[in-house]
């Protein structure tokens, strides 16, 4: 019985962490290239809405996932255009997108589905247990009897670890975020790299959003991300922009979330807000424990202009 509770707690942790981790991985790529997009929330919302819409229309998961990715990438590219082409302040651009997509997705939903008291919904993806792996006691069930998105997440972490630390592309990405001038004079197209990184951010963030509708909920609602985009930003910093670190950070936050819900159901008269703030307190504490200067890419948030000295 105890083990079942532990296993289900772990599984809940992974479920809570998955969308955050996906979006945070995307943001990691973008920030490594020097583009800081605090509009992750907008990317996720867009991914969530478009994947839901496509699923509702087509009934095909692949189409839906693709639509979510497109939605996320499109959103991220608006940000990329503003910050790279227009040299706009990346923070404002991100915040503006958050406002825009909060309104836009809700507006589109309203136009598409009208005001109904019946909830337009789709069937959610079912968990798929991986043979052998899912039989490992305790963690097997929690980690390897999940939905396909979670496996995509694991795969992404591995791929990104290789990408960042074993390939020339990773070096290029790092150089572009750290010293764009050095990259430029070495013949690297700084803006092209940044656009690609932003696209990747949109793709992963879109997946994170699609996870919410296609796996978790099966429907769309206004502001359905409810701040997860900001939490993803936190996971990026907490994980020190290392894919594995980011995953672990997301899991820590996810576990605090899973824990606070469980603590509440134990029943006590402490106001529920005391539990609700647990994940945030945990985040601050973890950050303090994992002390040591986290290094930001030196050119993070700064537009690159070749002929500016």
């Amino acid at each position: 019985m105890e083990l079942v509770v532990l296993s289900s707690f772990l599984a809940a942790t992974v479920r809570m962490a998955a969308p955050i981790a996906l979006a945070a991985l995307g943001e990691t790529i973008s920030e490594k290239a020097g583009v800081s997009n605090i509009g992750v929330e907008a990317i996720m919302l867009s991914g969530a809405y478009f994947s839901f819409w496509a699923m509702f229309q087509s009934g095909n998961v692949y189409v839906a996932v693709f639509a979510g990715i497109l939605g996320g990438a499109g959103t991220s590219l608006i940000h990329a255009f503003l910050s790279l082409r227009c040299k706009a302040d990346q923070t404002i651009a991100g915040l503006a997108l958050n406002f825009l997509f909060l309104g836009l997705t809700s507006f589109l939903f309203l136009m598409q589905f009208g005001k109904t008291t019946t909830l337009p919904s789709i069937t959610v993806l079912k968990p798929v247990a991986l043979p052998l792996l899912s039989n490992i006691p305790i963690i097997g069930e929690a980690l390897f009897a999940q939905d396909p998105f979670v496996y995509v997440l694991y795969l992404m972490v591995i791929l990104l670890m290789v990408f960042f630390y074993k390939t020339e592309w990773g070096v290029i990405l790092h150089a572009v975020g750290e010293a764009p001038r050095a990259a430029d004079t070495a013949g690297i197209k700084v803006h092209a790299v940044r656009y690609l990184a932003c696209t990747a951010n949109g793709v992963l963030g879109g997946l994170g959003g699609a996870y919410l509708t296609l796996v978790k909920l099966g429907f769309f609602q206004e502001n359905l991300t409810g701040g997860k985009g900001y939490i993803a930003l936190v996971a990026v910093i907490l994980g020190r922009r290392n894919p594995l670190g980011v995953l672990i950070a997301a899991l820590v936050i996810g576990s605090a979330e899973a824990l606070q819900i469980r603590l509440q159901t134990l029943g006590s008269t402490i106001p529920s807000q005391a539990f609700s703030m647990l994940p945030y307190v945990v985040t601050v504490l973890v950050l303090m424990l994992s002390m040591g200067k986290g290094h930001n890419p030196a050119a993070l948030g700064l537009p690159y202009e070749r002929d500016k000295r």
Partner: protein
Amino acid sequence: GGAKEAGTSGGKLKVALLLSGPANDQGWNAVAYAGLQEAQQKFNIETAYSENVGIADGEAAFRDYAAQGYGLVIGHGFQFGEPAVRISSQFPNTKFMAIESNTYSKNAASYVMACEEAGYLMGMLAGSMSKSGVIGIVGGFEQPSIVKVLEAYKLGAKSVNPSIKVLEAYVSSFTDVALGKEAALSMADQGADVLSHCANQAGTGVIKAAEERGLLSTGDSYDQNSIAPNTVMASTIYSVPALVLTAVEKVLGNTYEGGVFNLGMKDGVVDISGYNSFEAKIPQTVKDAIAAKRNEILGGSFKVPLIETRSK
């Protein structure tokens, strides 16, 4: 400031509704919106509404509508009581109404729904249908209008099964569906086999969780069977339409006055839905017990205790 002249324009009464969330929130706000629609059809009135009106904007919204000549402005939620009263003295010809509040003035009234009456019956249903002896309910915010439902639910469940264990959680959100779902899942993990909610949007997550785990569930605010036809046994019904209709009728008949009005089952404002596809699956004895209790409430021989702060 603005036009003090208010009431009817071109003979038509204009009614405005302020919602604290989106109008399609599958709960609290959705039913109010539906009520407005119904009133419009029935009385040939002009209507308007504002979504997502926060605490910071309530007063401005009331003022705006009153200044535009609306005869009745309804704030759907306790937090609108205060601003309504404050504005009401500046627009004596406009009638103000707040739902679930407890303040009033000459032309501002508060209408309170006895939601706990339906909550009690839902508790009875859940308690009777549980095989494991554990049930769970998820609340939105920990505030009186929600707490009273959860507390009544617990009492109802205990009345049919004194040894039942009721898990409860407040997710501090009416909108975080994922959180609602996760809370329900954690209750399921602890053995709960009937999952209920009183959490608007977030509550739909609870129903989805029950559906996914093949458990039973109850709905809230309106008949939510359509969300998960094989999961939702019955729902509480808060007939805001009835409330709105009552108010509009009074305004039209010039009998609208300030005060706090408690409306419950016997006023046709609170009820429970039918059992839909569960009609056959719920034992007759359970249905009978619930119907009997409902009659007692209607007849006034049983009063569901109103508990507005959370008990252990």
